[in-house]
Structure formats: structure tokens, C-alpha cells
């Protein structure tokens, strides 16, 4: 890519917004995923009795909804990112390319 085009894109306000938003959002969500997963692993490592506590009268324990919860969280957090990216980031990228590739 020629340097001139690169500079024009890099200086475009929509590009600046896109870069800042996507990187920040991606890092925050990565952090959230790590907190949930490693939190789960540490809970398993340090507090087994809590996870093996019965929810009610039956045999179902806290471990079951928490384990399924981590799986569902993983899918949902991915969906949240993709939804925002589809709505917002593609528009911003489109604005940039329209502005510079006339």
C-alpha cells in the first residue's frame, strides 16, 4: 500500500475511532473472558465444597449451573462482540474506505 494512502487513512477521524474502539472493546472482553474462566478454575481448585453444595432438595449442585453458565457466557460474549462489530465497526471501516478511495 502506498505511503500516501496509509497516511490519509491513518489521519481519518473514522479510522481513529474504529481503531481505538475495537482494540479497547476487544481487550476488555478478553479480560472478562479470562476473569470468568480462571475464576472458575480457581473456584474448582480452592473451593470444591461450595461447588458440591446442593441447590435444593435434589442432587443438583451449584457446580451444574455454574459450569453450564461458563459455556453459555462464552457463546454470549462472542455474540456481543460480533453484534457490535457488525453494526458499528463495518460502518466505520466503510466510511474510511469511501473517504480515501475516491
Amino acid at each position: 500500500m502506498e505511503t500516501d494512502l496509509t497516511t490519509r487513512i491513518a489521519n481519518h477521524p473514522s479510522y481513529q475511532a474504529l481503531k481505538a474502539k475495537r482494540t479497547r472493546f476487544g481487550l476488555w472482553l478478553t479480560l472478562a473472558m479470562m476473569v470468568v474462566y480462571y475464576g472458575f478454575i480457581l473456584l474448582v481448585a480452592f473451593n470444591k465444597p461450595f461447588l458440591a453444595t446442593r441447590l435444593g432438595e435434589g442432587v443438583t449442585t451449584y457446580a451444574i449451573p455454574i459450569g453450564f453458565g461458563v459455556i453459555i457466557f462464552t457463546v454470549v460474549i462472542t455474540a456481543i462482540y460480533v453484534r457490535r462489530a457488525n453494526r458499528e465497526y463495518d460502518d466505520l471501516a466503510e466510511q474510511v474506505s469511501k473517504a480515501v478511495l475516491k
Partner: protein
Amino acid sequence: MSRVHVPMRQLLTLCALFGVSASIWAAGADIGQAEKQPTNWVAIGMFAVFVLFTFGVTKWAAAKTKSAADFYTGGGGITGFQNGLAIAGDYMSAASFLGISAAVMFGGFDGLIFSIGFLVGWPVVTFLLAERLRNLGKFTFADVVSFRFAQTPVRIFAASGTLVVVAFYLIAQMVGAGQLIKLLFGLDYWIAVVLVGSLMMVYVLFGGMTATTWVQIIKAVLLLGGASFMAFMVLASFGFSPEAMFAKAVEVKTGIAAAAGKPPAEAAAQGFSIMGPGGFIKDPISAISFGMALMFGTAGLPHILMRFFTVPNAKEARKSVLWATTWIGYFYLLTFIIGFGAISFVLTNPQFLDAKGGLLGGGNMAAIHLANAVGGNVFLGFISAVAFATILAVVAGLTLAGAAAVSHDIYGVVIKGGKADSAAELKVSRVTTIVLGVIAVLLGIAFEKQNIAFMVSLAFAIAASANFPVLLMSVLWKDCTTRGAVVGGFLGLVSSVALTVVSPSVWEVTLGNPQGSALFPYQSPALFSMTLAFVGIWLFSILDKSPRAAQDRAGFLAQQVRSETGIGASGASGH
């Protein structure tokens, strides 16, 4: 309820396979040793139908595979939804289907902890890599890493990382395939390995990425369909009450413990233990380290990364990971239900147990026997055929990634300086495919009797320690240089392999050294080898004052602009 007597030896075998304790760390979800079964003609018939159908697909794909670009990316016109299914098909191995459902049958909740580890890498791939990979790369992840760096050293590193990961993953799959087919179809081990190797070569050689993609999609649909049916039948028999399913499983497990001579209170505690974490996680360092290998290894598996170049743009790339994550997450929920179903319907049915009360054919047969219990002999044949198809889809993806690293990165760029013509590169890919196929078959046969349980987790640890750090730093860190990336990457590669060799699972279990003699006490090297790789990349980059380093840093802006906007990205992957 029927009391099932499971003798201690059988329990110990199961422990060894799926690890009540430390061994599960290393186990990956491997297939383990298997006993040969009587020839199953229904399963063979179903599998023959699958093979004929996929040959048809390969013939169609072969007509479309004219250039090296077609071979690597299937022409780049695959949609996000299709690619998501193909990624799921590439990732859900037979070992994770049979191994995890068996681990759940044996240890209950512990099996779920294991499968969660295999899922949590996907959001990380989505947030940090998927779109950027698509915008920067063309055929292999080395394209992305070497975007602004000196081509030769970086390509050599990336090809090494790819081939080492592919080799360990492939050996694990081939040995698993041999064991599984011996188990399911009653064929000899070596015939099974040769069969898998030959079919895989046909798909990759003639149909390239297009055939591989469709084999993976078909397999994913069959596997998800079959597993859904089993989970549905299990839940239906409990009136769709998970509590009823769990209660019955606890009752069965309590009965087994009582039959083994445990006093009632102890038997009840043992029965209930499947509802919470057991011995899966011993020390927190191993737990975190293993978690890191699984989470970040997913983001560094070359055959998975390669799938992002088959879609036309960043939007489809991110859609593919969302679909893949959804299908894989759903699949792990199903394996959990299947494992609990197996406790109720397999462990209580003398038809599936041998004279000593163990599972016929070994611990991995949990899901297979359950298929028989809920769907009869025809469904059993179907699930067996699906398990075989699953292995084929995974080895085809691995071989394609290995072939691309040799033909595109080494031959195309390092040897020919990026000026190789498409026909010559395609020829090299095909020769490499044959060579890799033959090597995989020979290694598969050589490792038949070896304990290769550590290989899948080693492949993940290497991917997390070598490929992922270099990929992430080259894409996101401005000051990263060629020297930093190559030195740090090799540090991660060498240290992850070395630490695995001196860890208990290889040093003691596989190499047979006395217990307690392993130099590295933890079950996974990732925490240490990943740190070493990142520190290496950082240190050797900031100390790098060479002219090349200045050029590397100056190239960052252009790379970032393209990775964020996709402007200038190779369109539908080079038509």
C-alpha cells in the same frame, strides 16, 4: 435398580484413561488402548456410504481446484456460516466426543471442567485475531506474522511452529483412529491407520481446501445431529428433567460403590461425588497452566487459523467464529448429557458389560454403547461411522495446514522468494501432502503401543507458546521486530517441548522413569513457556537496533491500517 459390579482393575484402567487425578491433564481426550471387536457390518456399510458421498464431493471440488490459491483457501468464497461449521468440524475430534462423554460417565462434573477448557479460547480468537487475520493474510498464518518482517527467518519459524504442532496432533489422531476403528469396526489396527491415511490423502490431494471444508461440514452436521438425538432420547426418558437424570446417575454410582463393598454412607458420598469437582484439579499452578494451553492454544492452531482465509472478508471471519463457538459449546453440553445418560443406561445394562462388569471394548465405548441403548443397532452403526468420519475430517485439515506451510511458506517464499508460479506451488503442495500422509501412517503404526496421551495437550501447549505470542505481538505491538519475533517464538517452541518431556506425564508415564524423578513438577508447560516467549519477544525487540528493526517498526502503520480496515486485503483470496 440394577447393581453393577465394576472391579477395581477396570476402575483403574478408566482412571488411567481419563484421569481421576493428574493423568487427565495429559490425557488430552485421547482414545487410549482398545480391544478389537467383532466386525460391525452395519457400521462399515454406513461408513462406505459416507466415503462414497465424500468422494463425490471431492470430484466436484477437484474440478474447482486449479491454482495454489484454490488449494489453500477453496477460492475464498466460503460463507461465515459454512466456515463456522467447518471450524467446528475441524475442532470437535472423535477423541473429544468419545473421550469427554466417557470422562463424564466416569467422573461426572470433572468431564465438564475439561470440555470448558476447550471452548474458552474461541472468544479470544474472535476479539483479538479473527478479523485481523483475514485482513492481513492470504493462505497461512505466516502471511500475517511476516507482513512487515524479514520474510525468510519469520517464515522458517512459522513453518516450524506449524509442522511441530501438526506432527503431534496428527500422531495423536492417527493412533486414536487405529484404536477407534479396531474398536468400532473390528478391523486390524494397521488396516485402520492405512485406511485413514489413504482417504485423507484423496480428499486433500484432489480436492484441496474445498473438499476438506465440505468433509468437515458434513461431519459436523452428522456429529451434531447424532449427538443431539442421543441427548434428546436421554432427556426424554427422564421426562426432560435434568434433576431426575442426575438423581438416577447418583443412585447408579452409589449402587456401584456399595456393590464394591463400601459401607452405605461412603457409597452414598462416592455416588454423589459426580455432582461436583473431584480430583481433576490438584494444584492451582497446573490448573492455570493447563487452562492457558487450552485457551491460547486454540488461537495458535495452524489448521484452525488457516480456515480464516477461506472467507471473503473480516465480517464473514467474525461470523464464522461466532457460529463455531456456538456449535462447539452446544456440542459440549450434549456430551455432558450423553455422559450422564451412559451412567444410567450403559452401566446398568449387562448387554454392554464384560464378564468382569467393565464396559465392553474399554472405557471409551460409553457414547457408542449409549447409541445402541437409545437407537438400536442401526443408530450404533451410524454413530460409529460418524466417529470415523470425524477423524478423517480432522486429519485432512491438519495435513492441509502442514502442506501449506511447506509449499507456500518454505517453497514459495523462502526458496523461490515469493515468485513461485502457482502450478509449481500446487505441485509442491500435493507432493507434500503425500509425504505427510505416508509419514503420518508410519508414525501412527510406530506409536501403536506407546502412551501418546500427552500429544494433544502438547500440541495445544506449543501452539499457545510459539504461534500465538508471535502472532499477537506482530499484529498488536508496534515495536516488535523480526529478531524479537523469531527468537521469542523459538524460545516458546523449544521450552514447551522440553518442559513437556521432563514433566511427569512423559518422563515417568511414557518414558518409564521412576515416579518423582520428573524435573518439571507441573502437568502443562504453558504458564512458563508462554511467559518465556512473550518476554523473549519483548526483550529481543527492544534491544534490536539493527537497520532491519527500524524497517520493521516503520512498517507497523501500514500493517495496522490494513488490519483494521481491510483496505488492500487480498480480496476473495486471489482469483
